[in-house]
């Protein structure tokens, strides 16, 4: 699957975990913002009912929050979160199977790691045609903004976001200093964000 790589930012994840354990809940919310879509996609491969997907995702983050003091940093934070999500989804599936009122259609069988079982564009029961259209609009704006970027900015952000290269690796590929890599990636993100933020504001009706 193209670009489906976990983020490389392990040290900053660990430091956000440490801040959370020290009592800063907002640090945990930053991790939630960062990983929520990824976790929802993962759970969506196991559970068909999209109402349940969000509930299980919520439960996953709550469990992760409670267990954060046990996270030692010997594995990547995402890997650890991934395991919690899978276990939470499996537990939910077992409970659902025991519930005679739940139809088989709500469940999804199959390998957790089966990438092909993900149908990311299936509409959810929460989604209206307008919200599906809004999501497609955001994707279109992002892609258009990417196409409009100068070549060096587009290359830098592609290597970072899609190929998952580190700044050091990108500086080698692009034959420029790491500071330049950082600046180009930032400028690319800023250019794309300028187009996306108004769209998000219009869709949500309020600022974050």
């Amino acid at each position, binding site marked *: 699957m193209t670009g489906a790589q976990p983020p490389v930012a392990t040290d900053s994840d660990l430091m956000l975990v440490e801040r959370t354990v020290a009592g800063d809940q907002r640090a945990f919310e930053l991790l939630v913002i960062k990983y929520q879509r990824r976790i929802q996609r993962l759970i969506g491969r196991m559970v068909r009912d999209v109402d349940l997907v969000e509930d299980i995702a919520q439960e996953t983050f709550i469990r992760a929050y409670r267990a954060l003091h046990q996270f030692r940093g010997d594995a990547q934070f995402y890997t650890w979160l991934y395991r919690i999500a899978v276990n939470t989804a499996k537990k939910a599936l077992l409970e659902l199977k025991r519930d005679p009122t739940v139809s088989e259609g709500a469940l999804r069988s199959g390998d957790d790691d089966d990438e092909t079982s993900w149908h990311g564009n299936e509409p959810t029961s929460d989604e209206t045609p307008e919200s599906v259209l809004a999501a497609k609009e955001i994707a279109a704006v992002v892609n258009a903004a990417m196409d409009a970027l100068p070549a060096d900015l587009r290359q830098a952000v592609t290597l970072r976001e899609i190929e998952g290269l580190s700044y050091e690796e990108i500086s080698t590929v692009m034959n420029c200093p790491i500071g330049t890599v950082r600046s180009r990636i930032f400028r690319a993100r800023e250019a794309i964000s300028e187009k996306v933020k108004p769209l998000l504001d219009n869709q949500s009706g309020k*600022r974050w």
Partner: protein
Amino acid sequence: MAHDTLKTREAISALADGQLRGQEFARAVEAVSRDDDDRATWHVYHLVGDVLRSGDAAGHNDLAFVERLQLRLKSEDVVVQSTDAIKSIASDAMNTRDNGQFDTQADSANASRFRWKLVAGLASLAAVAFVGWGWVGGLNTAPPVSLATAPAAPASAVVVAAEQPQIMIRDPRLDELLAAHKQFGGTSALQMPAGFLRNATFEVPNR
């Protein structure tokens, strides 16, 4: 102001890529945690990354998801620690990753133990020097001024040590220790205490 905003956002971009360390990391996390606009920037940067990687825009429900989670988190037990403890933990975490860059305002966890070890070492050295001086035979008169002289403000010396990362060379307990050793002034390790000898003076009776 605009320059500061851009600088902050650039730091947020680097934070998203795990590129920040030390004070820069702390400042960026503070900014994203406390400021709504910076938090929105953090969200959009990650949304853009997700869209580029998978084509999945799914950003329209993000706000509701996080708000719902925030409500649930409020009812969770939070490990309550002082702000200084949070800064210390974050600082310690960052210092172990910085190559030789240390936060001079942070005191290490075992700094007080080191100070007491130093005090104990100095006290031992002073005691040995004191005994050695007496063996040479120069202690019957006045004791060495340097050993007898107490610091003018021992309490403030302790305070200074607490406020600044400096080695403490005087301590009230050291003074007590040295004062206790004064009792044995004028003797060597091989001789009996002078006080005992005085008590044992032989008097020739008058005839």
